[in-house]
């Protein structure tokens, strides 16, 4: 029986390979299920570190100004451009829809409400993510893989205090300002389309807008944009700060930062809206 020995040894070998594959699959499944929680806890850890180091001297004013300029001033054109078209398309859709039952006079009011509460904060945060968030991740990621962050540590400079804190503060301050800009420019775009192109009365458009939109609506949007500003910069910094694997790793980190930020904005939008409206989360 020359073939008996190989067959007998092959069976336990196959069983052992199957066990190893099952173990790998189990480990993969567990890590996939746990990864969102791991990621969120890492974000909170970085936020805690940023608060811890943010309240301690030295306070590097120049870095705060630079970060605000990069996130805020640098995003003005993009935010304004998208706001004009978002406002315009809202006007097109609403005038067309409202005309069916003679309510086109409410266009200004509904657009104002939508921009102040939802569209302004969400779009402004998404624009900051796509322009400034991705750039922050790439910059910090490059610094990580070329040892520049390690160099800071060896020079007794805390890298969270030096690199993360100014960006977080800038996100917290500048995203609400950009949201206000988005609201104003969005209303302007909607006004232009509704009045100049679709023939709505300008007085009625502005009167209805002022009648329905009040400070509570604007402040709801601003609260959201502050939360988004911190979330977007925190995610961008976390992904860049802990990037590894050379240039390809920085690319992957940037990709993750943009995807996670977009998801976080929409999830936080729901959570903050529920809290502000006192509706409960689910």
């Amino acid at each position, binding site marked *: 029986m020359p073939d008996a020995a190989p067959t007998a040894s092959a069976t336990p070998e196959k069983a052992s390979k199957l066990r190893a594959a099952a173990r790998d699959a189990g480990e993969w499944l567990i890590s996939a299920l746990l990864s969102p929680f791991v990621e969120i806890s890492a974000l909170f850890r970085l936020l805690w570190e940023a608060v811890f180091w943010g309240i*301690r001297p*030295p306070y590097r004013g120049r870095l705060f100004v630079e970060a605000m300029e990069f996130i805020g001033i640098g995003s003005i054109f993009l935010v304004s451009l998208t706001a004009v078209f978002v406002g315009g398309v809202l006007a097109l859709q609403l005038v067309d829809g409202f005309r069916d039952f003679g309510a086109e006079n409410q266009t200004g009011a509904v657009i104002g409400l939508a921009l102040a509460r939802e569209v302004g904060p969400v779009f402004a945060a998404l624009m900051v993510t796509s322009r400034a968030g991705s750039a922050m991740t790439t910059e910090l990621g490059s610094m990580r893989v*070329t*040892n*520049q962050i390690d*160099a800071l*540590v*060896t*020079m*007794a400079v805390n890298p969270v205090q030096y690199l993360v804190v100014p960006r977080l503060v800038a996100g917290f301050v500048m995203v609400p300002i950009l949201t206000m800009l988005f609201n104003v420019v969005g209303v302007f775009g909607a006004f232009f389309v509704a009045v100049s192109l679709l023939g709505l009365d300008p007085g009625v458009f502005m009167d209805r807008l002022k009648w329905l939109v009040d400070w509570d609506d604007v402040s709801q949007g601003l609260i959201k944009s502050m939360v988004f500003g911190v979330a977007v910069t925190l995610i961008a910094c976390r992904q860049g700060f802990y990037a590894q694997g050379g240039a390809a790793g920085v690319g992957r980190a940037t990709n993750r930062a943009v995807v996670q930020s977009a998801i976080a904005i929409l999830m936080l939008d729901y959570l903050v809206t529920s809290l502000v409206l006192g509706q409960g989360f689910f």
Partner: protein
Amino acid sequence: MRLTRPPLPVQAKGDPVHVRIRDVHKSYGDHHVLNGVSLDIYRGKTNLIIGPSGSGKTVLMRQLIRLEKPDAGELLVNGVDFAKLEGLNLAAMRRTFGMVFQMSALFDSMTVFDNVAFPVREHTDLSRKEVRARVMDRLSALGVADAAHKLPAQLSGGMQKRVAVARAMILESEILIYDEPTTGLDPITTEMVDDLITEAEEMFGVTSIVISHDMASVVRIADHLSFLHQGQITATGTPQDLLHSEHPATAEFVRASRISLD
């Protein structure tokens, strides 16, 4: 808050051993990288730590400057256990070390001048004029004063190394660590970097620790060396001692590098 380097303990001043590394262990999960490394770093000398790729050299360097905390063991710098320090004490103690990274790690958004001035601005209250004088003095000493206004990307690899040394030494650190300083450089630049290490040691009176796998550099600049293999020191002494080592891995490394003292 300004971090001031701790004063040198009186008993440390006459001690020829600057750093004592004792039984240092480091693991990542199940992977044991350092398995009880013990060695001495001699004051005012060029100390090389060599070994093949994957032997744990860079991990040892990361423990030595506390970019990571060892799992166990002691890192006695001037008699103070660096491995046990935390927070502001750790930050203050870090000023004992200057670090020259493999790819220099200069801040690419800053000019050469700003790179070298960075530690001074962070840790001293010197006026702009004093900072300028100190930085230009260091850059001149290392022959790169003309590049002060340039960005790191505009410099050659050798010049970047000089700027990195200037930055590492601007706060007059006692110990200068070089991580694979000649990797990826052509033979002429390699020799220039070796000369730079010797120059910096003579010019600033520092203790140099060089992490390398370049045997030619060993022969050229080492006063004392330690051979790291699979996370342990398997040979230590002068370059001659290494070349005549009977440890199989060390002897194989020497043989493969085709270096002799003749």
